């Protein structure tokens, strides 16, 4: 009873002596967000110094025997002295270097150390590429295209999907489409070109991306019932296109480059252009139409030419032309007639009605084409410096950024840059005559043409008879407006006849109402026979 007990130093309240039972400091997630790495613990560390590594613990020093254990910070000789409770803990200063260069993979046991939600995402120090946001519908199309690329599915159906915008990035992968041949036993391995079909009917597209026209293997393109206001001239590049549907849009006129699709080396067979709110001509071309008559052509099938090779599929002829709009390179219109006023008024004045030409012929030899060169003395083909600069900028991918650097005083140049960016997006403009890329066309005018498709007739009960069928039966849809753009007045409108024009590389001839695929009756050889 009286035996004196060894006096132990008083316990310090609040501080547990067992380091394993020390209460954890409440962690502040903000202080943690700077360091998401796991604490550095190695399996070889089983000494007490291990505690020093565990994050949030303070380094402790022990002096003397175990029963004198006290934090060294309190005092050196705590013997007999009642120690007061420690004040607030000093702020931790131990922080590992942000980038220690040591990667420690998680073993899945210390997930408590990782905060669930980071307060603020880490800000990148370098400027980041802004990825343009795309709509859900476009994302869907993007996924669809990706799937088609993987599976080799050639038809992309995207009807009625509320697609409002279509960017180049979505369409561009399609140009890499490769046909996946079917591999079956006893069937010869066949390598063929893909025949892509893209159906975008009944969406809400306002404009088309330029990348669409670089998809070489597109054979069917349906854009029926969209909100397209214009068709980019780049459409002439689609050499493999067989079916093109542009009906039920808001198109006022077509680019004259559309006629390139009629050339002999292209494959266009089906073309739907109506209905569209096409620009009507102020005068009707009745007198010209009567010359040919409403009835389709008679076709005389010459005996020696049995082959259907190089026969045209479509024939066109000019009916009339609007006045010419001239503009400066900065986009300022200098002529009285403007395309915009005509579009607003909904009717275009006709400046010239072409003379009928009774006889015309086509030939597979392009050098046989009559070349009309009308020289205007005062004009030059050299583009203005503003235009030259814009063309250079148009070729570069940095055109879009240019506009943002232009000061406010030069806002007209900014408008020019913005317009050029829009054109670049859609595949660019070309001069209708010399096929140079242009930014601001010096001249613009509209020509009305009649289009007829040239098709084999079955009415006569046997093959080999052809008819020229109007592509629309409606009287007001006979004259189709085509916009022409020119780089300089030397590429301006040239006097030409209203006879049937044979697309480049096709053969045949017309005299009056009769179309001859072969030699004329009573004629041995034909002048266009190669």
């Amino acid at each position, binding site marked *: 009873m009286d035996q004196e007990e060894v006096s132990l130093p008083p316990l310090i309240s609040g501080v547990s002596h067992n380091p394993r039972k020390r209460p954890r400091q409440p962690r502040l997630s903000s202080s943690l967000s700077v360091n998401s790495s796991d604490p550095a613990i190695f399996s070889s560390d089983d000494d007490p110094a291990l505690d020093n590594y565990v994050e949030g613990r303070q380094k402790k020093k022990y002096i003397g025997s175990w029963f004198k254990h006290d934090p060294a910070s309190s005092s050196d000789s705590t013997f007999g002295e009642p120690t007061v409770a420690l004040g607030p803990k000093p702020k931790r200063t131990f922080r590992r270097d942000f980038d220690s260069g040591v990667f420690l993979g998680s073993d899945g046991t210390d997930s408590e150390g990782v905060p669930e939600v980071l307060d603020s995402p880490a800000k990148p120090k370098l400027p980041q590429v802004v990825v343009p946001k795309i709509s859900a519908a476009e994302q869907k199309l993007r996924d669809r295209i990706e799937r088609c690329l993987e599976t080799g599915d050639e038809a992309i159906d995207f009807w009625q999907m509320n697609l409002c915008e279509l960017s180049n990035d979505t369409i561009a992968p399609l140009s890499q489409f490769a046909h996946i041949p079917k591999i079956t036993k006893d069937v010869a391995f066949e390598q063929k070109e893909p025949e892509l079909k893209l159906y975008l009917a009944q969406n809400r597209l306002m404009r088309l991306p330029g990348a669409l026209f670089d998809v070489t293997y597109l054979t069917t393109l349906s854009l029926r019932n969209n909100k397209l206001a214009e068709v980019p001239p780049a459409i002439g590049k689609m050499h493999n296109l067989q079916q093109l549907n542009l009906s039920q849009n808001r198109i006022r006129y077509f680019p004259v480059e559309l006629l390139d699709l009629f050339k002999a080396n292209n494959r266009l067979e089906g073309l739907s252009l109506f209905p569209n709110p096409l620009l009507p001509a102020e005068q009707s071309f009745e007198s010209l139409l009567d010359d040919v008559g409403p009835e389709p052509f008679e076709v005389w099938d010459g005996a020696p030419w049995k082959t259907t090779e190089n026969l045209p599929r479509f024939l066109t002829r000019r009916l009339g032309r609007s006045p010419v709009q001239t503009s400066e390179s900065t986009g300022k219109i200098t002529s009285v007639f403007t395309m915009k006023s005509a579009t607003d008024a909904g009717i275009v004045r006709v400046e010239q009605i072409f003379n009928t030409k009774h006889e015309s012929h086509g030939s597979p030899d392009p050098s046989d084409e009559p070349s009309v060169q009308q020289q205007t003395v005062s004009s*030059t083909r050299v583009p203005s410096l503003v235009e030259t600069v814009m063309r250079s*900028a148009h070729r570069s991918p940095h055109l879009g950024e240019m506009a943002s650097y232009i000061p406010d005083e030069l806002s007209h140049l900014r408008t020019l840059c913005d317009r050029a960016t829009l054109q670049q997006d859609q595949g660019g403009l070309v001069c209708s005559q010399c096929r140079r890329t242009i930014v601001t066309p010096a001249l613009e005018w509209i020509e009305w043409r009649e289009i007829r498709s040239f098709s084999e007739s079955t009415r006569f009960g046997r093959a080999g008879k052809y008819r020229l069928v109007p592509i629309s039966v409606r009287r007001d849809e006979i004259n189709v407006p085509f916009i022409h753009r020119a780089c300089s007045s030397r590429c301006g409108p040239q006097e030409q006849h209203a006879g049937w024009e044979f697309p480049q590389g096709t053969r045949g001839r017309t005299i009056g109402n009769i179309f001859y695929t072969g030699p004329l009756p009573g004629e041995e050889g034909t002048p266009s026979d190669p």
Partner: protein
Amino acid sequence: MDVQAPSKYVTLISSDGFEFVVLREAAMVSPIVKGMLDPKSQFAEAKHARCVFQEISSIVLDKIVEYFHYWYRYRNSEDVPDMDIPVEICLELLAAADYLGLDQ
């Protein structure tokens, strides 16, 4: 000083002091330069056939002078090659071209 025939060449000076001697006829493509060098006017530029462009650097003026000769050489030809312009000076050149009225 008696009235003498205008010289065949004119001097264009950039903001950093470079002098470009250009064929007068070629420089006349710009209506602004033409107005500055009009012998009928009493401008100092016209008297000495020297134009100082305080806003145009030598790099840009060099391209403008190149364009003057490009225009002069091909003004009547049918086949005009493209003039190459580096993208980095496009913006400055565009502003300068607009200033010189080269948009016809």
